[in-house]
C-alpha cells in the first residue's frame, strides 16, 4: 500500500544548495507551497524558478547532505479534522503527541478568508469576571485580542482563567514556543477544571525547532474553523506567544535574503499576522472564533514592530502591569483597549456601563497626574489627595486580576468608590444615571 502511493511521489536525491533553513534542487511539476520530506524532515516549497525549487525545512537543515532524499507529497500542509480532535494534543504537524491516528477529513491549513459580507457583527458579551476586562475592556465573541505583557507576567495563567470562564464550546490552544512547564500547566488547569474534552492543543515547545512554530497557528485555526463553521460551535483560540511566531518568520525571511524592514522583521509581517488574526469571526449560523493571543514585549516597548503591527490588526489589546501600590497585577486601564466593547456595553450590560467605565478611568488618570505632582515635590490639593485614595481602592477592588464578580457588582462597586471620594459633579456622569444609581454613603 505504502509503496503504491510512493510510486506517484517524485523522489530526488540531488540538492545543489543548502542554507540553514532551505534546500534547493532541480525538480519539475512541483506546486507552490507543496510539502516535501527532506531527509525525513518536513519541508515546504517557497520559491520556484524554472526547474529550480527552493524548500524551507521546518526543523532546520543541520546534518542534511547534498545527496539527501527529497520526496514531494503533491499537497500543501493539511490537518485531519473530525470529532476525534477534542481532548487531544498535537504537534506542529498535526500529529497526535501520544501517537495514534485521528479519523477525519483532511483539510488544507491556512485556507481562504471569509467573505466579509457573510460575516455577522460580533454581539455576544464574553464575561470573564475580571473587572479590568469586563468593566473596562469587555470582550465579544468573534473578537481577536492579545495580551501585551512582559515575559515575567502571568499571562498564561490569566489566559487559562479567561478561557475556562468564557463558556466556549471548544478551547483550542496553539502553543508557539511554549515552555514545557507552561504546556504542562495548561494541561493541568484544563484537567482540574474537568474541561479536557473541550480542549484541542497544537503544541510547539521551546524544545522543538523554531521554524516548526510557523505551522501551529494555522493548525489551531483550521481546527477552529471546523468546529465554528461546520459544527456552529463557539470556539476560543489561545495563541501563545505570537512574538515567537514573528521571530520565526524573521529567521526564515532572513535566510532567504529578503530585505528586512523595521526591527529586522520581514516587510510582510503585517499581512502575515493579519492572515491569522482575521480568522476570528462570527459566522451567521451561530458559530464563532474568538482569538486571545499573547504578544510578549521586550522591556515594555510597544513601538517594536511585533506589538506595533499586532496592535494595528487586533481589536484592542490587554496590558498587564504590576501595580506597586497594591502589590498585584492589574489590567492597565490606560493602555488596554477592547475595540468591540461598544457593541455590548450598555446594550448587553447595564445602560450606564459606558459612562461609569469612562468616569472611573478619567479619575484614575487624574490620580496619575497627582502622583506626578507628588513626585515633583509639589503640594497636593484636596482633590488630588482624594483621587489618590480612589485610585488605590479602584486598583484593589476592580483592576486587579484576582477580581471575579459579575458586571452589575462591578458597577455597584464603582458607584461606592465614586461616592466615597467624590461629588457627582466631579464624576461627571449624565444626570439621569446619577439620579438612578448614585449611592450616598
Amino acid at each position, binding site marked *: 500500500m505504502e509503496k503504491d502511493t510512493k510510486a506517484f511521489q517524485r523522489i530526488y536525491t540531488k540538492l545543489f544548495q543548502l542554507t540553514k533553513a532551505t534546500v534547493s534542487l532541480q525538480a519539475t*511539476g*512541483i*506546486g*507552490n*507551497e507543496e510539502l516535501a520530506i527532506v531527509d525525513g524532515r518536513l519541508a515546504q516549497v*517557497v*520559491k*520556484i*524558478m*524554472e*526547474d529550480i525549487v527552493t524548500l524551507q525545512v521546518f526543523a532546520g537543515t543541520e546534518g542534511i547532505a547534498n545527496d539527501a532524499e527529497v520526496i514531494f507529497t503533491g499537497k500543501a500542509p493539511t490537518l485531519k479534522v473530525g470529532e476525534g480532535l477534542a481532548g487531544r494534543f498535537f504537534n506542529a504537524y498535526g500529529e497526535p503527541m501520544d501517537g495514534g491516528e485521528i479519523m477525519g477529513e483532511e483539510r488544507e491549513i491556512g485556507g*481562504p*478568508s*471569509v*467573505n*466579509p*459580507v*457573510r*460575516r455577522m*457583527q460580533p454581539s455576544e458579551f464574553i464575561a470573564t469576571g475580571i473587572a479590568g476586562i469586563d468593566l473596562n475592556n469587555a470582550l465579544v465573541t*468573534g*473578537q481577536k485580542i492579545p495580551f501585551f505583557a512582559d515575559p515575567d507576567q502571568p499571562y498564561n495563567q490569566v489566559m487559562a482563567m479567561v478561557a475556562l470562564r468564557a463558556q466556549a464550546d471548544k478551547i483550542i490552544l496553539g502553543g508557539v514556543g511554549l515552555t514545557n512547564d507552561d504546556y504542562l500547566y495548561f494541561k493541568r488547569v484544563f484537567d482540574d477544571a474537568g474541561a479536557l474534552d473541550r480542549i484541542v492543543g497544537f503544541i510547539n515547545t521551546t524544545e522543538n525547532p523554531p521554524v516548526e512554530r510557523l505551522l501551529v497557528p494555522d493548525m489551531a485555526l483550521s481546527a477552529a474553523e471546523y468546529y465554528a463553521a461546520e459544527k456552529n460551535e463557539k470556539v476560543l483560540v489561545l495563541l501563545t506567544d505570537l512574538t515567537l511566531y514573528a521571530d520565526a518568520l524573521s529567521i526564515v525571511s532572513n535566510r532567504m535574503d*529578503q*530585505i*528586512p*524592514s*523595521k526591527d529586522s522583521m520581514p*516587510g*510582510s509581517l*503585517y*499581512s502575515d499576522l*493579519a*492572515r491569522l488574526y*482575521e480568522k476570528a469571526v462570527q459566522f*451567521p449560523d451561530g458559530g464563532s472564533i474568538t482569538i486571545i493571543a499573547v504578544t510578549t514585549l521586550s522591556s515594555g516597548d510597544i*513601538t*517594536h*514592530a511585533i506589538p*506595533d503591527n499586532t*496592535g494595528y*490588526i487586533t*481589536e*484592542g489589546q490587554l496590558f498587564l502591569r504590576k501595580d506597586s501600590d497594591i502589590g498585584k497585577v492589574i489590567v492597565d486601564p*490606560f493602555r488596554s*483597549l477592547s475595540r*468591540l466593547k*461598544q457593541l455590548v456595553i450598555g446594550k448587553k450590560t447595564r445602560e450606564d456601563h*459606558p459612562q461609569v467605565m469612562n468616569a472611573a478611568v*478619567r479619575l484614575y*488618570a487624574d490620580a496619575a497626574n497627582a502622583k*506626578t*505632582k507628588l513626585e515633583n515635590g*509639589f*503640594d497636593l490639593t*484636596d*482633590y488630588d489627595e482624594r483621587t489618590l485614595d480612589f485610585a488605590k481602592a479602584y486598583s484593589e477592588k476592580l483592576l486587579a486580576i484576582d477580581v471575579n464578580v459579575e458586571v452589575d457588582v462591578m458597577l455597584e462597586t464603582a458607584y461606592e468608590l465614586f461616592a466615597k471620594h467624590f461629588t457627582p459633579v*466631579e464624576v*461627571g456622569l*449624565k*444626570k439621569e444615571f446619577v439620579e438612578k444609581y448614585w449611592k450616598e454613603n
Partner: protein
Amino acid sequence: MSTIGKVTGIIANLVIVEADERVAQNEICFIKHEGTRLMAEVIKIMGRKVYVQVFESTRGLKVGSEVEFAGHMLEVTLGPGLLSKNFDGLQNDLDKMTGIFLKRGEYTEALENDKEYEFEPLAKKDDIVKAGDWLGQVKENWIDHKIMVPFTFEGEYKVKSVSGKGTYKINDTMAVLTDADGKEHKVTMVQKWPVKVPIKAYTEKPRPFKVLETGVRVFDTLNPIAEGGTGFIPGPFGSGKTVLQHALSKQAEADLVVIAACGERANEVVEIFTEFPELDDPRTGRKLMERTTIIANTSNMPVAAREASVYTAMTIAEYYRSMGLKVMLLADSTSRWAQALREMSNRMEELPGPDGFPMDLPAIISNFYSRAGFVYLNNGETGSITFIGTVSPAGGNLKEPVTESTKKAARCFYALSQQRADSKRYPAIDPIESYSKYLEYPEIVEYLNKNNGENWTTNVFFIKDALLRSKETYEQINILGDDGVPLDYHTTYWKGEVVDFVISQQDAFDKIDCRSSFDRQRYMLEKVVDVLKIEFKFDSFEEVNPYFKKVINQFKQMNYSEFESDEFKKNEKELENIIQERKVA
C-alpha cells in the same frame, strides 16, 4: 488575438511569465490553474520575462501553467447600480459570491444586467458632445445618475439619436454618436475605465473655495476641510482613525460616499454593512447605505488587490463627480497600500528607498491625492471629490515615509495623539499640531464668514489661541507648582480646557453629540468665546478646578441635548447661573 504566455517562476504572489508577443505594463492577465483563472497584473517587463503580481493565493501553482493576457489594464465597470454595493478591491460584487469563504478565481459582475432603469434623455439629436457630456439620466436610489459620453471617446461627436423616456437595461443602446469621420458609435449605460488613469472629463479644477460640513467639530470649527479638498489622519493604532472615518462617512454633507477599506479589519467593514442599511441620512431621510459604495479589501484578502482597491474607489468617485455630485472618498488605511507596494518591490529585489518602501512612493501618493478636487464640468456644473485617507505610521512615529509623503500631498493634517487617546479625549486629534491649509485661503475665510456669521473665523482663531495659551500655562504650572504661579494661570489653563472639552472633544457614540451642524457649532462657538472673555473671581487656585469642572459639565449637558430643545435651553440657563456665580460684574 490576445498574447499567451507560460509561468516560469513563482515567489509568493510574484509570478514570472515568459511571453513572446505584445504585453503592456499594467496589463491584466489570467493564469490558468486547476480549472480556475487567477487574475494578475503586469508590473515589470524584462525582455521576454514578464513579472506579474497575482491578486490571489498562488498555492499549488506550477511552472508551465498557461497565461492569457487580456489586452487591457485593470479597469472598472461604470454604470447605474454602483451605489449601495459591497465590492472587493477588484470590483467583484461580494454579495454575488457563493458560499461563506471566498473562492480563488471567482469573479462576479459589478452591475445588474437585467435590472431596469427609468431613462430620461438630456441631449438631443445633432447636439455636439464630448467625453463626459450628459446624454440622459436614470434614477439610482435618489440620485440622478447621468448617462455620459464614454470617457474613452476622444474629440467631438454629433448625436445621431438618443433613446426616448422609458425603461431600459444597462446594456441597451441609449444613444448613437457620429464621430468626425462619420463613423457611428453606440453608447449604453455602461462603460469601462482603467483605474490608474484619472478621469479628466472637466474643463477646470479651481482652488477649492467652499467648506464641506462634516458634523465633526475638530474638523468644521477648528480645521475645516474644503469641498474638493484633501486631508489625512495619521495616528498610532487605537487612536481613533477608523471611528473618525466612520463618523465622516455617516455625517458628511456629501451626495455620496465611497469607502475604501484597504488592508484593515474585516469586522470594521461588517459594522458598516450592518449599520448603514439601518441608519438614516440626516439630510435626505433615506438610508445611509443608499448613498454609499464600499470597496472592501480587508487585511486577510489578497495583498496585491489592496493597491487596486484605492484606485477602484477613486475611479468610482471620479465617475460620480462627472455627474455633478459632491463625493466624499475615504480610505482606511493608505499605509496598507504602501506596504503592499513594499512587499512587491522587495520580492522584485528593487533598490529600496527609506524603510524599504519603493523609491517612487512619494510620487505615487501625490499622484493619487491629486485626483481629488473640485471641478467645473463641460456644461458648467460643478462636482467634487473630497478625499481623506488615514495613515498608520509604524510605531506611531510620524517621521516615516508614508506620513511624510502624504503630508506633502494633503492639505489638511489631522494628527491623532496617543496621549489624548490614552486619556480618552476623543476624537484624539491634537488641536494644536493639526492644521487645515484651507484656513489660509482668503476665499475659504470669506465663505466661512458669509455662511457662519462675520465673526466666525475671528472666533475660531480666538479659541485656537486659547488652546495654545492653555497648554503653555499648563506646562508652567507643572514646573512651578499650583501655588508657584499667579492665580490667573489657572483660569487661563481651564479656559483652554473648556474649549477642549466642549469643542474639540465629541462623543462619536452618543446619538446627539456625534453630529453637530454648522448652526449648532456656531452657537456653541459663540457661547464658548463669551465664557472665555469673562473675568471670573477666585480667592485661591483651589477654587478654580472644581468651578470649571462644573462649567464644563454643564456645557457637556448641552452637547448631549438636542439643539434648541427645551432640555438644551434648560441646560443653557443652568450654565448661565453657574457663570453668574463667579462673574466679575
